[in-house]
């Protein structure tokens, strides 16, 4: 089953200061099971809006969004996806461990209540230990978020997103606020996590290199109005292969060729939408 199917989705903001702004128009997007799709484009191209439509944090004004064959709302209430943002958004009064366990403590939608049952305390502890090991923070389980660096906080946020073993991970510029070194390390970590969990990922970024390095497929978007201008495959191997190659992959000619292709698609999309003669 495909993870995400967006067809003909549009989002027009009404009311407020940005009334009448067309954030997205006629977007089609398919994310297969276990596939990593990056949404890339300049600021204001609607890539975050598109992610929010998939997450049902916002509703399309036209078209439809399906997640694992359900409506986006049903999928959200069933906690079918995990999500991470540019801001880690940890709860400062909880320990790192308790932050990771948060999604497991909260019940899903009313329909699910009592049926599937919540993981009990021991199960939660086992799962959070497993996840903290996955992101390399076992020694920091009892620390509080403010005691961690930005990169570590973001790793906690990713562990939290994985808490309920979702088959879909939504990530909105999760490494956007980090320095380049930390960023590349976390990209490798994400590849490893993907290889382990096999989850599909929708990844919003404005870094071309990041999109190419991580993705099976890069969706290039352009602003005013936000729409998809190109979809490029990135045949650089499985996540496990990529993680194993690391720096080697970042210096591979095939990688550079894909980076150039995405860059060209971005700029042609930009030129087409601005219609400024150069």
């Amino acid at each position: 089953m495909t993870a995400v199917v967006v067809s003909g989705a549009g989002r027009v903001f009404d009311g407020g200061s940005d009334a009448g702004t067309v954030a997205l128009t006629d977007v089609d997007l398919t994310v297969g099971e276990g596939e990593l799709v990056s949404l890339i484009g300049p600021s204001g191209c609607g890539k975050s809006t598109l992610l929010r439509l998939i997450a049902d944090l916002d509703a399309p004004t036209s078209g439809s969004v399906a997640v694992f064959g359900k409506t986006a709302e049903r999928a959200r209430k069933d906690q079918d996806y995990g999500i991470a943002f540019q801001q880690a958004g940890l709860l400062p009064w909880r320990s790192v461990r308790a932050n990771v366990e948060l999604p497991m403590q909260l019940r899903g939608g009313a329909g699910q209540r009592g049926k599937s049952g919540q993981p009990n305390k021991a199960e939660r502890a086992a799962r959070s230990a497993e996840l903290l090991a996955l992101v390399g923070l076992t020694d920091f389980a009892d620390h509080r978020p403010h005691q961690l660096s930005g990169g570590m906080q973001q790793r906690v946020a990713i562990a939290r997103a994985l808490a309920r073993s979702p088959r879909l991970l939504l990530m909105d510029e999760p490494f956007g606020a980090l320095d380049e070194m930390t960023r590349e390390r976390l990209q490798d970590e994400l590849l490893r996590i993907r290889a382990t969990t096999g989850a599909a990922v929708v990844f919003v970024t404005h870094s071309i290199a990041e999109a190419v390095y991580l993705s099976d497929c890069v969706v290039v978007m352009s602003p005013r109005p936000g729409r998809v201008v190109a979809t490029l495959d990135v045949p650089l191997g499985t996540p496990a292969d990529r993680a194993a190659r690391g720096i080697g992959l970042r210096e591979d000619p095939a990688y550079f060729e894909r980076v150039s292709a995405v860059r060209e698609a971005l700029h042609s999309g930009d030129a087409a939408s601005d219609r400024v003669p150069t």
Partner: protein
Amino acid sequence: MSRQWQGSGKRLGPALAGAAGVLALVAAWEAYKALVPDDGWVLGEVRVLPRTTDVAMPHLWDMAARAAEPLTSAPDSPPLWLVTLQGAGFTLGVSAVGWVAGVVFGLLVAVLMARFVPARAGLLPWVVLSQTVPLIAIAPLVKRWGAQLEVGTFDWQDWMSVAVIASYLAFFPVSVGALRGFTSPDADADGVRLDLFRAYGVGWWTTFWRLRAPSSVPYLLPALRLAAANAVVGTVVAEVSTGLRGGLGRMIVEFGASASADPAKQWSPIAGAVLVGLAATGLVALVALGLRRYRVGEAA
């Protein structure tokens, strides 16, 4: 262990500063009394500095000596300091009841305003307006309404009227502070935490208990301190205006009436009011200590 050491080390600084502050006040009082003539300073018809006679400004040691003497000249009269302490205890008790009632009511109002946006628009002006009503005006009204109240065997006591008035002053900072705290996740980190809770598919109340209430603590604690001060002031003033016996308010009025004959006497209940204020602040500090986990990483 080492942390506790650091903690007590840090405490020492403020304690010294506090002692220095009290000493400075004592010195200022006595210096003013020594330097300014008995009649104060009069410019034309206007007295710009108050009198420094022993009636207007007794020496601090006279106040202390008077506190050690019996309340009246009656043979079995208890010492003034003991009567003052009893009065302070009474006032503190009434203040505490008023504070708790005010905090509970203030939180309820804040939850209502946080939950229903129309309620916010409808209630907030009234909350602000409620504080412009002069206390002196409502105190006798509350007493009269209370006196008419009779539910089964429950009998309305006069001190309850005073507590109600104290709570009336105490609820205001709590409702405003708590509302700000409850709505703080809307702006924190671009509302990411609210987005997260929405992504978890949980309802408003779960989000409230897990996110909004804990987030409100940094905003709530200053409000609780303000409420404690308001409750004490409200209690003393209400004791005066309802004529309730047993507390400091009534004592200040009674002793003030005989001030020309016994000027040092009325300063005992005034010192008692300061003690009540300190005790109230200390109790709130205990509450803050219990909530300290929620104060780390606070933005503002």
